[in-house]
């Protein structure tokens, strides 16, 4: 700062950093938003890639469910109930996998996006909040599609023989979609109201608790009566028991499990839409 005498006070930027003509063409304003579907597709693609690249999340969504399925199918350390072990285990492990993506992964990812100002930044782009939620939903469903494909392939290799008919397949799909909506609403409620670190700790804690309580590895019928009735109200229990009814028993799940999931969707969805903070 030796040039203290500012004899060149008039800003003449053009003489300073010369702007070549093609530079002018490059930056000449031409604003406009892309079509919504293109924005949503691009955002969903990015969310999906970031999720799949994320090491800890991959561990949670892929490695742990596969290990649980393989480990407890091949060993007898756990009493999983009657029938072939893999038939009893697969529905619960599928439920766990779905929860790991639509609740745990989504909560932690969104919590840190909020913390790092990503949600706020996206709020300044033409992508609407609806578009962002649609993209997140698509990415979650895509990851779950991959999880289901991998887990089913592993289970089939282990000798899984699902009692699958058109009715039970449709009933299972509906369960998965409803549970995804419930878990995602809970995830957004958590991520949009708590600090990112609290969300990280809370979402992992919930994952472990649900793994133990939610009928993932064994039916909740082994719990004492009152506990069984209480955990039956958890979304993970509704999903795992519903899937078990459909895939292991080959019968249609009762309306109760759908009702439990629907109530979670309505309550968590309402609260999330009211309480979610974008920054």
């Amino acid at each position, binding site marked *: 700062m030796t040039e203290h005498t*500012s004899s060149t006070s008039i800003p003449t930027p053009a003489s300073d950093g010369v*702007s070549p003509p093609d*530079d002018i063409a490059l930056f000449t304003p031409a604003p406009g938003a892309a079509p919504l579907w293109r*924005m949503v597709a691009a955002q969903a693609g990015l969310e999906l890639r970031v999720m799949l690249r994320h090491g800890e999340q991959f561990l949670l969504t892929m490695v742990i469910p596969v290990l649980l399925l393989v480990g407890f199918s091949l060993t007898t350390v756990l009493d999983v109930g009657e029938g072939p072990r893999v038939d009893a285990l697969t529905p619960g492990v599928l439920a766990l996998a779905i929860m790991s993506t639509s609740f745990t992964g989504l909560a932690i990812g969104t919590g840190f996006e909020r913390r790092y100002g990503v949600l706020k930044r996206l709020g300044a782009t033409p992508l609407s909040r609806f578009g962002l939620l649609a993209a997140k939903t698509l990415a979650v469903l895509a990851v779950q599609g991959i999880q289901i494909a991998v887990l089913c392939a592993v289970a089939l290799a282990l000798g899984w023989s699902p009692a699958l008919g058109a009715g039970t397949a449709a009933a299972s799909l509906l369960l998965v979609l409803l549970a995804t909506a419930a878990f995602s609403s809970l995830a957004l409620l958590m991520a949009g109201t708590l600090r990112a670190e609290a969300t990280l700790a809370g979402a992992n804690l919930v994952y472990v608790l649900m793994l133990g309580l939610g009928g993932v590895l064994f039916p909740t019928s082994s719990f004492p009566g009152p506990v069984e009735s209480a955990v039956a109200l958890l979304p993970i229990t509704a999903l795992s028991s519903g899937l078990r009814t459909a895939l292991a028993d080959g019968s249609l799940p009762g309306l109760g499990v759908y009702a439990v999931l629907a109530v979670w969707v309505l309550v968590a969805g309402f609260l999330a839409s009211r309480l979610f903070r974008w920054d």
Partner: protein
Amino acid sequence: MDTAAVEVVDLVKRYGATTAVTGLSFTARRGAVTALLGPNGAGKTSTIEVCEGFRVRDGGKVRVLGLDPVADATALKPRVGVMPQSGGVPTGARAAEWLRLLASFHSSPIEPRLLLERLGLTSVSTTPFRRLSGGQQQRLSLACAVVGRPELVFLDEPTAGLDPQARRATWDLVTSLRAAGVAVILSTHHMEEAERLADHVVVIDRGAVVAQGSPAALTEDRREVCFQAAVPVDTEALGAALPAGGRVSAAEAADGRREYVVTTDDPAGLGPEFLATVTAWCASAGLLAEDLRVRRRTLEDVFLELTGRELRD
């Protein structure tokens, strides 16, 4: 196209009991660079975030491209580019990937590859955001602000923490934006930045405008007489001899000698009589004023004079 890029009238923004912006007004022209200059905590970011629609104002009027930043947000978003002070990118997203994403939100974006090249980010295009250096993160954020070919961009401290080369690249880009007809609003606490880039400088302190105008206009009427002396000067006596509004300050010059700066608050500026008074007093004191000159003050001097505050980083 006759409306201003940004028009802010008597803006008030409060956070609880704290009033961050207290009746701030300025107008930013289209195709021009407007700098909001002030120390940290002056209210620059609050002002910018109200204009961006991120925050709701508590009073006053704000028009962005003739529209309301909150009520007309959907119409404004494609037309306005935003560079936040930090962050805004998922830590696991790769540089080029994120820029391509933002480009895909717009109907005729700038080719991301060209922008990465232009800002020296080609070599890190597949690097996740969290592994970029601070300067690279800033430049990516800048690229994201302009990729949609906006009419107006808000750059919140675009060069904070940048090394000289990166700062240069940012300045060049701002210059090109201006040449292409884009309105640029940037906040800074670097005097040099405001002086070099801005057509219009809005000096902000404690949530209010303390002065505004072109850098030339802001410094034009503010000349000062400075000289060095081998022996200490009685600044009080010199001050007393000056016409009303005259002041004297002393500073250590580089070679250890004392440098004296004589200024005036007289709105008419510093005239020949003022200079004659100074030299006459020196003569009467038997003092040889060495390196005597009349110089235009820098924006920094003006800022310090207006706010009586040191710039804080």
